């Protein structure tokens, strides 16, 4: 079990000892960096391709139909067919568009999506860079995506793009605040920004999701993560039935593939970070650590795709109201409760935190009640007598 757990680390080490026999002394570090970077650069896009297939098959099954199943044995070669299609499409740039910005936006949007992979702990001892500010790095990079969406929208000189871009920017900056506030309780309890330390602080079965503030924090972080990635039910920026295709209307071919790739890599990274911070990362009893990590991450991705097939899209004012009037006060009270929980002794802290959280949740629910749409009664025209 120990060797299966560390199989990637041992593989990298044996590769380096084999290479050092015929390479000079100073190339050790460069080789180590190159191996980690190549692993991530191969893993990222391959993950994205098979996530698109998984999503189409899952949403198809929810809608009572098969997903794509013609291309390979189970549709397994479908992503390759999609890739070939996108590479060979003609690259159309509108005449009035701002060529420099139109070209730059999809290129720069992929960069943070790939960089976040370097601070995710995939297993015991398997992290590309153990930064001392791991989670702050993730937060900073996920907040830079905002302006490039707006640059893409503005450079297209298209009213639908601009509308989609502005809505998307408003949504992303409103949902950043509850996201940051829901990460802070974990940092309070652990005391460090580094992702490796956060995972190691959840050893055994005391994952943070099993504590009162952890449940609420996990839900807030997951929902704001879904909103940051622009997925349904928060995807009015690219809602396919509303505003043609939102901010990436005027992009075709490889540039659209880059936007699509950035969205799916962001989905994977957000699920991975939620699993790291609240669900215990690679901690788990019997299986190897990286198997546990992938089980947790893919469970969260499955839930995200389930949301996509089930929920209708939220309207703009409902979306903003949800972030500012419900999630933000709840995240603030959650922070307070996490502080209280850390300072009291064991049986009392759970009870006190649970009481405060339940009371706050109910207060916010009743305060937001007038804005929820009333239940409709449907009348069908039946001709049955």
């Amino acid at each position, binding site marked *: 079990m120990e060797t299966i757990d560390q199989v990637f680390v041992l593989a990298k080490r044996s590769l380096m000892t084999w290479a050092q026999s015929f390479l000079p002394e*100073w190339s050790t*570090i460069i080789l180590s960096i190159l191996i980690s970077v190549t692993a991530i650069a191969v893993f990222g896009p391959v993950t994205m391709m098979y996530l698109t297939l998984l999503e189409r098959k899952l949403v198809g099954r929810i809608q009572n139909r098969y997903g794509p199943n013609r291309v390979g044995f189970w549709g397994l070669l479908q992503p390759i067919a999609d890739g070939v299609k996108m590479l060979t499409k003609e690259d159309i740039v509108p005449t009035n568009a*701002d060529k*420099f*910005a139109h070209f*730059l936006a999809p290129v720069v949007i992929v960069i943070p999506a790939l960089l976040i992979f370097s601070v995710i702990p995939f297993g015991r001892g398997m992290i590309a860079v153990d*930064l*001392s*500010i791991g989670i*702050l*790095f993730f*937060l*900073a*990079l996920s*907040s*830079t995506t*905002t*302006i490039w969406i*707006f*640059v893409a929208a*503005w450079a297209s000189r298209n009213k639908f793009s601009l509308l989609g871009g502005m809505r998307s*920017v408003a949504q992303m*900056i409103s949902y*950043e605040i509850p996201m940051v506030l829901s990460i802070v309780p974990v940092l309070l309890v652990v*005391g*460090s*920004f580094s992702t490796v330390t956060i995972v190691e602080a959840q050893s055994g079965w005391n994952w943070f999701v099993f504590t009162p503030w952890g449940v609420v924090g996990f839900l807030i972080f997951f929902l704001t993560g879904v909103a940051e990635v622009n997925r349904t039910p928060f995807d009015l920026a690219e809602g396919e039935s509303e505003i043609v295709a939102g901010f990436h209307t005027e992009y075709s071919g490889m540039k659209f593939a880059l936007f699509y790739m950035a969205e799916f890599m962001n989905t994977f990274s957000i699920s991975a970070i939620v699993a790291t911070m609240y669900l215990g990362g690679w901690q788990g009893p019997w299986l190897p650590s990286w198997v546990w990590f992938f089980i947790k991450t893919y469970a969260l991705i499955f839930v995200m795709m389930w949301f996509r097939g089930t929920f209708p899209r939220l309207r703009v004012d409902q979306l903003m109201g949800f972030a500012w009037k419900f999630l933000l006060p709840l995240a603030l009270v959650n922070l307070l409760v996490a502080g209280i929980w850390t300072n009291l002794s064991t049986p009392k802290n759970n009870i006190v935190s649970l009481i405060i959280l339940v009371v706050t949740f109910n207060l916010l629910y009743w305060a937001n009640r007038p804005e929820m749409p009333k239940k409709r009664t449907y009348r069908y025209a039946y001709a049955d007598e």
Partner: protein
Amino acid sequence: MSFFGSLATVSFYAVLVGVLAVAILTVTTRNLFHAAIFLAFTLLGVALIYFFLHAEFLAGVQILLYVGAIMTLVIFAIMLTAKIGDPSMPQSNHQRLPAFVGLAILSFILIPAILKMPWKTEDAFQTTNAVQIGKALMGEFVFPFEVISLVLLVALIGAIVVSRSDQ
């Protein structure tokens, strides 16, 4: 110096030259939207310089606040006050040459002064981390911290009041 010492030094100098080049592009380009994009790259370059100087927490805060929030504000302002389709308007006023000459003279005074001054540097490079900065903010600098949060609140309320339409 070892190979990696020299590689780090060479890349540090390259980043410095790159940031200076992008900053010059920012202040001299005609199209204001391109200037905003170049400013985003300048700020990312400054964050990279903070990483080189072992001030990692500050690099994270710089990217989060400057590139994530202030750039959004600047780009929204450009969008709301834009006059597209008027490329004949000159983007800079007639003070280009006097400004350049004056600043060149200033640099000829400042840079030799910097190079000649005997800086009393310590031998070891001092670093700090996020925990110590947090303790300093809540310990020694708690009063400026509270005052600055008040300043930010007042500034934002003022901005909302000033930019509201007169209804």
